């Protein structure tokens, strides 16, 4: 390809203010007409010093900061953090807390994947899937609102328990929502996923082979899109995920090479169905109990360190926490899934066209709040 570039190379700075960079990302594109010779991502526009802040507040106070990393999936962000602290403290949680955490995390995963699928449709040029996805996400946010008062940044998972128990009738309404929602996924497939133009735009674009994906440390739906069956919920189960029946969907390359944008997108759509399965099982397992039962009066872990990884909607989220025995963490380091997948962006986007850059970026489903922290 390189030899074919003849004209002058123009630098196009896409972002940080651009409708499709999913936040404040800047892509430095070296373009020759419509062809992109190189795409260099520049991050850091949303850096809010989370890790330094966390060193100056007590352990429970870090939870609201954690929310603000991946603001599209705040429940999952909290979950990883509180599980790490609980592991450090050696707290055992009761069954109700465990099931509610799973229900909330999976609902949040659906909400997050709906944003991913909807905005991806928008990136490819179809606006209607976006509105359909946001309509269904609205119901999930209503569940969160009635439970903890917030619709985006919840502070719901606390160390050792939950902020509140759910309102009466919550289980029934969640099942009603799942019953309503599963056929909606088919509608979305009819509108977007199986659309001929959509397949032509995404199925041969932005290929990440399994080897490339693994060597860049790509995780989550992006890794599974490349055909690698790895899910922390299955391979290193936490919170009793091993008791649940669910599949780990992988990209099969129905319309082109494995690891294309379409595969990554489709893994998310299939995961939404699996989340629905998990929610049904978790609601069935829900037993009465006190969600405040094991919340410690004072969180003061012994000196030591811990690494806890969980499967958040965008991939493997890792918390490395060092405790010096005081009430404040000595150091918190986050392993962010979006950051690692951005490193593979340049590899995936070489020699593509400007429209493909948007398609590849959208299929990675990044959230800049989590990349920059």
């Amino acid at each position, binding site marked *: 390809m390189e030899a074919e570039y003849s004209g002058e190379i123009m630098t196009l700075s896409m972002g940080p203010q651009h409708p499709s960079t999913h936040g404040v990302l800047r892509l430095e594109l070296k373009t020759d007409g*419509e062809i992109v010779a190189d795409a260099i991502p520049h991050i850091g526009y949303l850096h809010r010093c989370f890790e330094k802040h966390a060193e100056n507040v007590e352990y429970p106070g870090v939870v609201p900061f954690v929310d603000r990393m991946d603001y599209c999936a705040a429940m999952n962000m909290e979950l990883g953090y509180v599980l790490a602290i609980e592991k450090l403290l050696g707290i055992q949680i009761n069954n109700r807390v465990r099931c509610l955490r799973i229900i909330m995390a999976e609902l949040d995963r659906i909400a997050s994947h709906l944003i991913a699928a909807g905005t991806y*449709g928008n990136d*490819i040029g179809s606006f209607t899937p976006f509105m359909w996805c946001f309509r269904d996400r609205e119901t999930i946010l209503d569940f969160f609102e009635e439970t903890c008062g917030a619709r985006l940044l919840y502070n719901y998972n606390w160390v050792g328990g939950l902020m509140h128990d759910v309102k009466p009738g919550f289980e029934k309404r969640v099942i009603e929502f799942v019953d309503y929602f599963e056929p909606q996924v088919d509608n979305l497939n009819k509108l977007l996923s199986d659309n001929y133009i959509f397949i032509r735009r995404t199925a041969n674009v932005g290929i990440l082979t399994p080897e490339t994906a693994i060597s860049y440390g790509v995780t989550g739906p992006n890794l599974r899109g490349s055909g690698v069956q790895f899910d922390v919920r299955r391979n290193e189960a936490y919170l009793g995920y091993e008791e649940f029946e669910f599949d780990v969907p992988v990209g099969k390359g129905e319309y082109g090479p494995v690891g294309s944008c379409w595969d990554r997108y489709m893994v998310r759509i299939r995961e939404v169905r699996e989340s629905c399965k998990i929610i049904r099982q978790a609601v069935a397992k829900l037993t009465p109990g006190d969600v405040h039962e094991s919340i410690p009066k004072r969180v003061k872990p012994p000196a030591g360190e811990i690494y806890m990884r969980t499967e958040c909607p965008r991939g493997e989220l890792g918390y490395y926490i060092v405790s010096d025995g005081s009430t404040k963490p000595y150091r918190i380091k986050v392993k962010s899934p979006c950051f690692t997948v951005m490193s593979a962006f340049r590899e995936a986007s070489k020699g593509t066209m400007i429209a493909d850059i948007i398609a590849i970026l959208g299929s990675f489903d990044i959230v800049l709040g989590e990349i920059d922290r």
Partner: protein
Amino acid sequence: MESIAWLLHLIPKYDTLPELWRALIPIVVSCVLFFALLCLIVLFLVWLERKISAHIQDRLGPMYVGGWHGWAQTIADSLKLLLKEDIVPDSTDKLLFKMAPFIVFLGAFAAYVVVPFGISSFVTDLNIGILYVVALGSLSVIGIIMAGWASNNKYSLYGGMRAAAQIISYEIPAAIALMTVIIQVGSLSMVDIVNAQKGGIHHWFLFRNPFTFLAFFIYFIASLAEVNRTPFDIPEAESELVAGFHTEYSGMRFAFFFLAEYANMLLVTSVATTLFLGGWTQILPGPTQIIPGPILFFLKAFAIIFVQMWLRWSVPRLRVDQLMYLSWKVLLPISFVLVLGAGWMAVR
């Protein structure tokens, strides 16, 4: 125009005016009337698009302004745009930047003078009518390139270049598809073309023979691309090029681009209606015209416009290379075959 001339005739002392004035005044009056009517229809189309998109997307769309289903929303919006500060960025080529919207607007509206909305509801009957419409369609390309170049913005430049490539490629299959009808009629005049389709639905060129039937769909697809509608909206691809060639425009100038887009939509559907759906002629065979011609014309045109809007809110956007592939390797060869077939039907 004849009817307007006759109405003007009723004004006292009109006949005493000089010959030149009597020739010019009816033209000016009918142009102004048509322009006003078209502006109203275009405003209605903008409202219609918002309502249709809203219902496809499971929402309500404008509901408050003006009372009934927000009918006055676009009027309020255009007033707002006209009253906004007129911003011309410093780094632009001022003259071209200011001229571009008007050229696009002019190209969109000037073509209507030959479109017959009814038996006598047209400004003029040029004997090169359809050729004139196709030629004016190219005028908007010049305006769009001017806008893209003069804005001095890389996204605008991309939009302008994409628009040029796209509109010029799609004009060829569109014009060739129109030729199938012209061959059958033997005239370029829009009025003659409508008169050739009188007598009910089976006389329309859409159902006259298989070649013109297919030509209608070729023209429909190519006209979608000519007016930059999804799935061919790459010149203003929002997710890639911010707003394409009109990224730097705001206020009144943006409104001109916006209205021109909808006027172009109506223009291509008017051409399709005139050439393939029998224009203002009635649907059922028989001597009497039950529905007035202009109303029937707009019913047919709006049916096509509805399909255009439906498509826009349902399908994603093609990529540049796929767009060129469709035009040069699919539509163009098919349209050549159709012209040959239509020619054979005509001389048979």
